[in-house]
């Protein structure tokens, strides 16, 4: 832990909260760019390990920000990061629900939604691209990534099973 101040953590995630349309996976490239490349909070390998941990554990993907907070400022950092990441978006959702229900039948509502989803699709794929680039340094690793993606799409294999299998394969030391 290199002791980032809690206010620094809070400010970053309060701002990130309102741009995380589509959830935490969507802002993984942005977090990597800011926290690893610009601010140097952790190495790229450490970042990817945290992402991997958060994917292996139960719960919403947004908990990756709790892990980042934990990494740079311990348990209080984890709490501050998680609350900062969830509070603005949750307040917005709370208020927006009332507003949105007034336009249940409006045609523009479906139009806005369809437009935003197209952007989100590309952003999630970008997350997959960045994670693959950072995690995979051997051909076997690329193979594992491709196989996990393929099985996940084609067979409804439980993600935990894929992660456990890949972890055991990793034990060989060739990934």
């Amino acid at each position: 832990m290199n002791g980032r101040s809690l206010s620094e953590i809070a400010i970053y995630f309060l701002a990130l909260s309102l741009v995380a349309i589509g959830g935490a996976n969507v802002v993984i490239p942005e977090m990597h760019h800011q926290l690893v490349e610009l601010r140097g909070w952790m190495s790229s390998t450490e970042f990817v390990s945290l992402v991997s941990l958060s994917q292996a554990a139960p719960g919403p993907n947004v908990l990756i920000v709790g892990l980042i907070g934990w990494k740079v400022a311990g348990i209080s950092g984890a709490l501050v990061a998680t609350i900062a990441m969830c509070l603005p978006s949750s307040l917005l959702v709370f208020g927006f629900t009332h507003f949105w229900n007034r336009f249940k039948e409006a045609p523009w509502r479906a139009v806005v939604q369809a437009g935003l989803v197209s952007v989100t699709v590309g952003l999630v794929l970008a997350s997959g691209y960045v994670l693959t680039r950072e995690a995979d340094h051997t051909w076997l690793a690329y193979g594992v990534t491709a196989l996990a993606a393929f099985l996940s799409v084609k067979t409804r294999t439980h993600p935990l099973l894929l992660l456990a299998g890949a972890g055991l394969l990793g034990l060989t030391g060739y990934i």
Partner: protein
Amino acid sequence: MKAQDKSFFIAATGCYSACMDTSIDTTGNKQPPMTKGALFRCFFWMGVVSFGGVLPFARRALVEKERWLTADEFNEGLSLGQILPGPNVVNLSIMLGARFHGPLGSLLAFSGLMAAPFVILMLLASFYGAYGQVPAVQHIINGTAAASAGLVVAVGYNMLARQAKSWSTTGVSALSFLGCGVLAYPLLLVLGVLAPVSVFLAWRTRK
């Protein structure tokens, strides 16, 4: 490590199957509103078992088991959660809580959903901090990191496959992938440029 992995896995699949064989009603009848305690408990257990993504567990619990939402209301809530910032399921917990118990309901559903995963993750992270330098642990993490990258690719692929096929939607998705992924432009720039363009294109091609 192998033994620990195995027991962890057995415990996890146990939770999973326990969740899967609950009695399920598919008639779509809605039950009366829930109590505050039931609201918290439902989201708490959802958090505990939701390895590999909350969404399937949320739908099972809210629509099929508790019947607090119809399937249409669930889709509606998710779509709304999609276009707003924040994770879909967290947003859904805020909306559902608010609908039955106001601000307190939102707080109960949200904290129920987050409590167990937060504690589990902190324990996992401490374990990783203590043993992260052990080569065997590092090797396992390398393996799971490769697989979890694949899982995110799969989510993206599934979203792409569900999207209506047209030059404009595929083009916008490709540009946002290029901007945020390959070119590493800031997210706000990509959203600020592409979101208005994409909504405009969707309006032009509306039925």
